[in-house]
């Protein structure tokens, strides 16, 4: 009798470790900006690779839940998810790890250690390079929107400064939406003032192009993909998040317009 009870306890402890390991994979994928279907597939592949017979997942915007079962034993665990970003290289590396774990033969400790190594060592571009590339992208966006050449340098500098300051503020764990408003104000002001000083005839569009680094394009398209994949809860949450980001970005931009003496009505023409 005592042996039976011990055996069940051990099984539950094993299942708990499997569940937490699979959730760690899912959480990392979600924080990399992956679609929910990929998150569920990755976590389920890891759990099955560890020997779990039955897997069920539920995802919210800020947490993941998993139920794993083996024989008559089942266990449900939840794990919070941090800020959603976009990290393509880490995303691909974690997917490869999930596929490797799914083939079997890896222990929980090995998977956890490899995941921790990937999170710590997956290369990122230097912050200065990201800021410069973002500024160049904003300037290119500006040309696509029809800004004139005198405004391009101003947009480039404003986008670069905006991304650089955003990187610093987010590293200090400042609220994402507050950072969005601050960066929108900063980038739009710099872009507008620079374009005006350079004799641009498209100051309003230059200000708009300067804040395009804040437009959450990946979450916006992922929201629709999630809903199409059958995950309307996260898809809807992403839509709300996108709208909130744009409201804060526009607030920052409206303040910058006030600073430059541009009317709101004039900007919308």
């Amino acid at each position: 009798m005592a042996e039976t009870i011990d055996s069940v306890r051990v099984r539950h402890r094993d299942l708990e470790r499997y569940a937490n390991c699979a959730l760690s994979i899912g959480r990392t994928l979600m924080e990399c900006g992956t679609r929910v279907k990929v998150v569920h597939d990755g976590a389920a592949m890891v759990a099955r690779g560890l020997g779990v017979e039955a897997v069920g997942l539920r995802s919210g915007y800020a947490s993941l839940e998993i139920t794993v079962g083996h024989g008559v034993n089942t266990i449900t665990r939840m794990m919070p998810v941090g800020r959603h970003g976009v990290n393509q290289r880490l995303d691909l590396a974690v997917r490869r790890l999930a596929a490797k774990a799914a083939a079997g033969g890896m222990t929980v400790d090995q998977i956890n250690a490899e995941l921790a190594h990937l999170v710590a060592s997956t290369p990122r571009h230097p912050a200065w390079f990201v800021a410069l590339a973002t500024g160049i992208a904003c300037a290119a966006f500006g040309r696509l929107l029809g800004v004139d050449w005198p405004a391009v340098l101003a947009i480039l500098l404003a986008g670069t400064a905006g991304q650089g300051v955003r990187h610093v503020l987010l590293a200090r764990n400042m609220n994402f939406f507050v950072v969005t408003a601050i960066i929108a104000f900063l980038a739009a002001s710099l872009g507008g003032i620079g374009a005006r000083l350079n004799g641009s005839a498209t100051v309003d569009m230059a200000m708009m192009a300067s804040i395009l680094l804040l437009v959450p394009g990946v979450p916006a398209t992922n929201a629709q993909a999630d809903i199409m994949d059958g995950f309307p809860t996260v898809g809807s949450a992403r839509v709300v998040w996108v709208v909130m980001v744009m409201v804060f970005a526009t607030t920052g931009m409206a303040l910058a317009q006030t600073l430059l003496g541009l009317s709101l009505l004039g900007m919308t023409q």
Partner: protein
Amino acid sequence: MSADVIVQALPHLGHQALFGAIAAAGFGVLFNFGPAMLIWCGAAGAFALAVRSGGQDLGWPLEAASFAAALATSCSAILVRRWLGAASGAVALAGCIPMVPGAFFGHALLGFFAVTTVQPSEAITPVVDAMQYMLRVSFTLGAIGAGLAIPTHLIRNPDY
């Protein structure tokens, strides 16, 4: 369409493709794509903007041209999956980022802010303008999302 019309449209198409490539690659850096994949992001951005601009030059509305561009980019990324692997979907998405109507979104919200600054009798034009921008944002984003997603649902991807 005559050859002259095509030749006349080439500078505009080239301009849009060039700056689409730069924007897509620039945002690819922000999304932490690897160096090799950044080239693919640029190519996808150039292709997407060329298709969209070509469609608009033919008189298509922005939403239809964006849908066609996203669909073509997604299909093309699937065709070159041999080289892109599991990143093909992400590369197609990065290529379509320059088509996301962020400026329209900003205009729409600024328009709604502006409604609060005028008399009710003068508010019709700003409200209609803002609504038009918001609808165009919704339809264009929906078109891009659908164009990217449909091929991935029709063609099985062996990569995880």
